[in-house]
């Protein structure tokens, strides 16, 4: 290796070291620490009972209906919101891609949901559906108490999530659309392909890598859902999600051992989802990078 190559190598390490250390310090270390804590009985309210318990915390989490219910709720919210966002986001992306006038206005306005604090968005929707302060019941002629029943509470939570994050999906898909060569579309049009055929045979296949990345990003983001549920129901009406269970066990009930086991299991769930995605879309992700 030349002197210059070695110098470049050294500089590369030096330049990336601060970022690597900062990323590891607040993630790798705490997750390792969480794993360690999860093997102990460690409840801050009963500090004298501390002791090594092995996998017992995992056994009690995995045998508790709370965990499975929260997992189901989380997956339900994730699946429903990501599915709707994909369709809605794709429609918005196509619209912005096609539009000749007003494109900037549309793009600027869909950045608004992205820029709003999630807690504020959750409160806005909560107030809108509230039977006393809201306008939704008056608008629909209903007397529904939305957030006090399970299914209607889910509906409000999912609607809030969709509203807040569809723009992100739309912008990712729009960026993918602009990468499709215009010539292909034009050639297909000359050959007499209808708009629907062009969408199915050209746009969608070429968009596959972008769609995979967008869905993966949003899925992993949706699995972490905390703010909206916390503000709108605080997990009541059986709407608790995984993040809320971890928060309640760790921060509210101060049970570090059990809570750390929940945290480690959430990490496993997320890793499994990411792994599943990368396995089924691995090739296309490689291509798009």
């Amino acid at each position: 290796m030349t002197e210059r190559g070695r110098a470049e190598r050294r500089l590369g390490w030096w330049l990336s070291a601060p970022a690597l250390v900062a990323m590891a310090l607040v993630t790798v270390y705490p997750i390792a620490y969480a794993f360690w804590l999860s093997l102990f009985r460690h409840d801050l309210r009963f500090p004298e009972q501390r002791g090594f318990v092995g996998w017992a915390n995992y056994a009690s989490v995995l045998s508790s209906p709370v965990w499975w219910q929260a997992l189901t709720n989380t997956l339900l919210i994730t699946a429903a919101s990501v599915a709707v966002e994909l369709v809605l986001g794709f429609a918005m992306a196509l619209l912005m891609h096609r539009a000749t006038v007003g494109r900037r206005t549309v793009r600027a306005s869909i950045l608004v949901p992205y820029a709003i604090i999630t807690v504020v968005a959750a409160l806005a929707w909560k107030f809108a559906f509230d039977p006393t302060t809201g306008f939704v019941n008056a608008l629909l002629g209903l007397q529904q108490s939305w957030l006090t029943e399970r299914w209607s509470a889910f509906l409000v939570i999912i609607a809030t999530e969709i509203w807040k994050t569809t723009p992100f999906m739309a912008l990712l898909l729009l960026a993918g659309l602009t990468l499709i060569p215009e010539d292909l579309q034009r050639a297909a049009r000359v050959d007499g392909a209808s708009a629907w055929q062009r969408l199915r045979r050209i746009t969608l296949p070429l968009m596959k890598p972008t769609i995979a990345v967008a869905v993966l990003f949003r899925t992993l983001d949706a699995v972490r859902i905390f703010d909206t549920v916390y503000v709108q129901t605080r997990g009541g009406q059986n709407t608790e999600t995984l993040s809320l269970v971890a928060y309640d066990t760790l921060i509210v009930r101060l049970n570090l051992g059990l809570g750390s086991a929940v945290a480690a299991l959430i990490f496993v769930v997320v890793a499994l989802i990411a792994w599943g995605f990368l396995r089924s879309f691995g090739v296309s992700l490689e291509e798009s990078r």
Partner: protein
Amino acid sequence: MTGRTSARRLGMLGESAAMLAVVAYALAPLAWIVSLSLKRPGDLNDGRFLPQAVTLENYRAVFNDVQFPAALWNSIGIASMATVVSVVPAAFAAYAIVRLSFPGRRLLLAGALAIAMFPPAAIVGPLFNLWRALGLFDTWLGLVLPYVSLTLPLAIWTLSAYFRTIPRDLDQAARVDGATPFQTLRYVIAPLAAPGLFTAAILVFIFAWNDFLFATALTSTRAARTVPVAIAFFTGSSQFELPTGAIAAASVVVTLPVIVLVVLCQRHIVSGLTAGAVKG
């Protein structure tokens, strides 16, 4: 011929209607919260979207409150610190990824990807415990640190996508003139990358400004409690009455500046948000 033009006109009409619908979709909840903040206390339960009469009473109440101005100050301070501390190392790392060949490149990219997918709820507990032991609980630094780590991937992606658009010839010319790689970064790349740095800074700022999970778990008093937590835990003069109007006013105060910023820089933000996923 006339059939064709009228079909086209119909298409244009449909397109405009769809665009209007998208704009309404995006803005309705914002309009609703603004409207709530302007309603008189007696009109809050009238079931209308728009206020019957406009009052600024709620805004006065919010700024006379003890919690809210403190939270606003904490949010501004913590988010700004996190932004500066995150963007600088991210710029170094992004430059190394784009321009230098060294064995750590892949590790850095993989690490950034892993952290972008990381579930924050999994580290909030251990951090809670650690921070109490280290005296970082309920301090600015205690929030700045996790925000920096969690925003680094976003900043690195945004910046490396931006650095890639700067022609390599410029680096080479500087190198030929005898500049070291570090001088090249400092005097040639950094000034050209100013818009990219700015974009990364806004994205990091928005993340820190928006966060609720860490802010609620790692703070307990006015010393470090940020705006999202203050708004979520707002209590009125009596604790049985939810001060909806004041909450709405506080929400508008913290939302409008960010929206103005985002709309002004929309082009950069869009390219920053999509940098990691599509190109890269």
